[in-house]
């Protein structure tokens, strides 16, 4: 059967189970968009290519499937770069298809030509320029395989226009064969046996779970491990939801804005079990002082994550879920009663930390941003899918919304991309049309991709945007307050649009609360309104996120309220 490149692409996308694509057409994708119309794959036309990638990313984070986006050459592709880097830093499986100028024009500085393969090399797991139509099906197959396997990540496929138009015999590709790519899923059994012995010997063990647990679908196994061994669990920002946030064994988030008890327990534990984490600087603080009394066990599918930032006693390369399954089996053979019988002292100490320094804020006449998130948690019974922008809004969402399930907290952790939350919410809503999807935003970051309200309206994606509006770029202002003598250089955003009118201009509903007693009614009204809503909460302007560990300080040395 002779097919064009564009038709072959559709065949392979269908084979890969793609049901939604986020994209923006241009001269170099007309052929693909043309053929896309003939399939039952839904295409969501965004208003900026960055949003296409974030939407695909949001879709991937809540479904665990590969997110797909389609952008044109040149500016279309460069606009996508921030989204690609965001997904790369958080290990999110994406396939980004970009159109490219015809092969004979490549290198000519042709209209809308950029070397996007060159540009995205350091921020993709792998990328391809498709040299001819004969290679297309194989490359697309490989792209999906690479994106979703091992440590997931974004893969870009750049398809020149003439390759999209050229015809060739199409036969469905067989299995993907890559001679040098074989991620290690099965953990080393001997190492796991050693791990059991270390757990048995530990007096003050602590589990530190990250995004890898969620990506490997290992939350159930993690929960079982923690509960059977009574080991408390703290999570990275990316790991929130991997273990139920409302479980008594949960210590909440670790790191620069982690809870007091989580940060303190890393200083006192004698065994730290890192699972699907990478010990980045926002978590460890000063690395020399991090978990200084502890032996560290590190489970991760990416060997390069192990011993990158902290020394490790037992490295275990493998899939988190598989490793936890084997570990739980080994632990069944043990006397769990004996193993946990003096855990009380350790848990009591942690509980004392909790009593001493709870996450707290003082209720005043103005609306406190934390109060808005708390109310949101109450009203949604903790069941909403929460996306965030980046900065204070993100940290308050992480601290005050207690995630009990994986895939419900969608945030740009590694890259910290402002403008992520709204398009990611759209992607999550596409994946689960009936779910309640809320973007917790700041007044600064929402303006970075506010144009996507038009996309929300066009496809009737009923996302709710909660703006914690403090008229500042709040997190930078907080640093300026604490470390730069209150010199608020360039962080005051005192000319923002009227978000209520802006919502209305897009055809959405806009609501506003300026006093604490209005918070609940506005939230209720906003959440109950069908269709997209923007809620503008005028919050206390100079509220800070606490606890806070100054950059480079030991993680146990926190500034508290």
């Amino acid at each position, binding site marked *: 059967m002779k097919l064009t490149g564009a038709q072959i692409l559709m065949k392979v996308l269908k084979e890969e189970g793609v049901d939604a694509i986020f994209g923006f057409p241009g001269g170099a994708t007309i052929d693909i968009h043309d053929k896309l119309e003939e399939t039952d794959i839904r295409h969501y036309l965004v208003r900026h290519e960055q949003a296409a990638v974030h939407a695909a990313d949001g879709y991937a984070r809540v479904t665990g499937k590969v997110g797909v986006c389609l952008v044109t050459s040149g500016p279309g592709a460069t606009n996508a770069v921030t989204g690609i880097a965001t997904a790369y830093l958080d290990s999110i499986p994406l396939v980004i298809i970009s159109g490219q100028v015809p092969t004979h024009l490549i290198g000519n500085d042709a209209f809308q030509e950029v070397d996007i393969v*060159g540009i995205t090399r350091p921020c993709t797991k792998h990328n391809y320029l498709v040299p001819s139509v004969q290679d297309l099906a194989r490359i697309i197959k490989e792209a999906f395989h*690479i994106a979703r396997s091992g440590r997931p990540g974004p893969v870009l496929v750049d398809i020149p226009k003439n390759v999209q138009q050229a015809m060739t015999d199409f036969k469905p590709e067989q299995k993907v064969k890559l001679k040098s790519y074989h991620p290690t899923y099965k953990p080393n059994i001997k190492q796991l046996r050693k791990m059991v012995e270390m757990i048995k010997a530990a007096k003050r063990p602590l589990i530190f779970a990250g995004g890898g647990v969620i990506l490997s679908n290992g939350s159930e196994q993690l929960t079982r491990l923690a509960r059977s061994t009574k080991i408390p669990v703290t999570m990275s920002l990316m790991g929130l939801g991997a273990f139920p946030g409302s479980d008594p064994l949960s210590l909440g988030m670790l790191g620069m804005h982690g809870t007091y008890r989580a940060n303190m327990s890393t200083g006192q534990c004698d065994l730290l079990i890192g699972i699907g984490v990478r010990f980045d600087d926002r978590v460890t603080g000063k690395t020399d002082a991090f978990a200084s009394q502890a032996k560290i066990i590190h489970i991760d599918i*990416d060997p390069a994550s192990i*011993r990158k930032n902290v020394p490790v006693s037992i490295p275990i390369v493998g899939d988190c879920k598989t490793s936890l399954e084997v570990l739980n089996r080994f632990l069944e053979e043990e006397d769990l009663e004996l193993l946990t019988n003096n855990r009380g002292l350790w848990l009591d100490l942690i509980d004392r930390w909790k009593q001493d320094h709870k996450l707290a804020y003082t209720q005043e006449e103005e609306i406190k941003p934390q109060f808005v998130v708390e109310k949101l948690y109450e009203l949604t019974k903790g069941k909403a899918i929460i996306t965030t922008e980046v900065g204070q809004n993100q940290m308050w969402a992480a601290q005050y919304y207690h995630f009990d399930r994986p895939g419900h907290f969608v945030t740009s952790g590694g890259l910290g991309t402002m403008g992520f939350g709204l398009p990611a919410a759209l992607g999550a809503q596409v994946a689960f049309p009936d779910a309640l999807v809320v973007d917790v935003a700041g007044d600064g970051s929402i303006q970075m991709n506010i144009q996507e309200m038009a996309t929300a309206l066009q496809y009737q994606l009923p996302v709710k945007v909660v703006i914690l509006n403090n008229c500042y770029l709040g997190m930078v202002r907080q640093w300026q307050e604490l470390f730069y003598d209150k010199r608020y250089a360039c962080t005051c955003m005192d000319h923002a649009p009227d978000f209520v009118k802006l919502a209305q201009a897009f055809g959405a509903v806009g609501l506003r609360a300026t006093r604490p007693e209005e918070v609940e009614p506005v939230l209720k009204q906003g959440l109950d309104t069908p269709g997209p809503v923007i809620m503008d909460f005028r919050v206390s302007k100079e509220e800070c996120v606490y606890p806070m560990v100054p950059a480079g300080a030991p993680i146990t040395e926190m500034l508290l309220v």
Partner: protein
Amino acid sequence: MAEEKHILTMLVDNEPGVLSRIVGLFSGRGFNIESLCVAETIDPRASRITIVTKANETLVEQIEKQLRKLINVIKLRDLTGSKSVQREMALICVRAKPDNRDEILRMVDIFRCKIVDVGPEYYIIEATGTNEKMNALINLLKPIGIKKIAKTGTIALFREPN
């Protein structure tokens, strides 16, 4: 931890952009490259790259792990401390006046090099050897006057077990 020299040899896919991925990884992550050699192998689908880098133990582990993550890196080996053969090559253009020609020829003989081009005022010497030998030769030729030099990085192969 002390920095040591490491010779990393790798087989990679012989495709456009592969070298850029590897070099980009070094520059992007702040790794060091002392020298780099690339050429196709017997199998035209693969190239061999030899990189000499200076790093401490932890860092070289990270460099190797990051390189292995690249889809196009088929095989990688650190030849440091293992039994391997290592060579560099240089073409050295030296000033050769009548009064120092004899001395140059003696050195060429001692170092088992070859004169591959001769002019009224210069010789071009072709030399191969280990990094140490090349440095010794260059140091001895310097006072005579090196006009130009083209040098390869180290290439290395693991000795087959007997």
